[in-house]
């Protein structure tokens, strides 16, 4: 089945490139017939949360006087949720980001915000593909739905 193979390739790629780490595998193992949408639910919440936080960060860094404590608090949130879902690359970029917050470097923060945004959008688009492929695989196994 083409979708299953594509899904396999996508997942291997996401782990091999360090986009995802072992924590994500742990979450995948929690999915079972009694919780068939667990991964989709967590991934969706992460994407919504990430989008919201990145928006807040952009606003805070746009102000003439940057409140680095507030910026740091939001980055801390994003770091936390990325760690919880196994979004390794986003998490690592957040760790760098916090260093610039602590150093009160607006330029450093702006550059890292761009990096976080890119990493997050890359992950989000791959997550969306993953969920679509999973649905296709499900549909092929259970055609009479």
């Amino acid at each position, binding site marked *: 089945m083409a979708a299953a193979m594509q899904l396999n390739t996508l997942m291997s790629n996401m782990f091999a490139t360090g986009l995802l780490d072992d924590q994500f595998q*742990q*979450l995948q193992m*929690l999915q079972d017939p009694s919780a068939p949408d667990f991964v989709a*639910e967590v991934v969706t919440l992460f994407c919504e949360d990430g989008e919201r936080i990145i928006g807040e960060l952009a606003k805070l860094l746009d102000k003439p006087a940057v409140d680095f404590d507030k910026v740091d608090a939001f980055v801390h949130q994003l*770091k*936390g949720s990325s*760690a*919880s*879902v196994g979004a390794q690359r986003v998490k690592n970029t957040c760790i760098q980001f916090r260093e610039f917050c602590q150093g009160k470097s607006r330029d450093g923060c702006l550059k890292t915000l761009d990096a976080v945004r890119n990493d997050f959008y890359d992950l989000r688009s791959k997550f969306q593909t993953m969920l679509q492929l999973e649905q296709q695989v499900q549909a092929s196994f259970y055609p009479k739905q």
Partner: protein
Amino acid sequence: MMSCKGLGGEGSAAAAAALPHVLAVDDSSVDRAVISGILRSSKFRVTAVDSGKRALELLGSVCVIFLNLNLLLPFRLCASVLHVLPITFVLGLQEANVSMIITDYWMPEMTGYELLKKVKESSKLKGIPVVIMSSENVPTRITRCMEEGAEDFLLKPVQPSDVSRLCNRVLR
């Protein structure tokens, strides 16, 4: 917002009530979903709330009934409709009856530490084991929580193996 995962009409109420009920407290929606999933896969009933305040509301089990009535009636009427209680049980609402609390440390308004203190100060609630989760490994923080009576301190990201080890110990 409260999500009562695992509660509900499916199966018999008695069978569901036999499973330990864990109250998870975390202001992060992602972390609430993850901890709920981990606990549910270990066959616990989970209620996940987003703040210490809501956790304390739930822990006063009579208030659970009030909270549920709130969905139907203005709050002020709740006190005068206690005769409706039998109906709330027929609707399948369950008592809080919490066997363990697992809470994030760093939350706005009330930290997990403050929630721990309030639980341990309450004659009704102090017997409930409280576990603290944190993404930061701060030894003084850990010591303070353990001294205040925390059952354990888990570093985030929390993994299924951490939780099953913990629950087997705490909820024999």
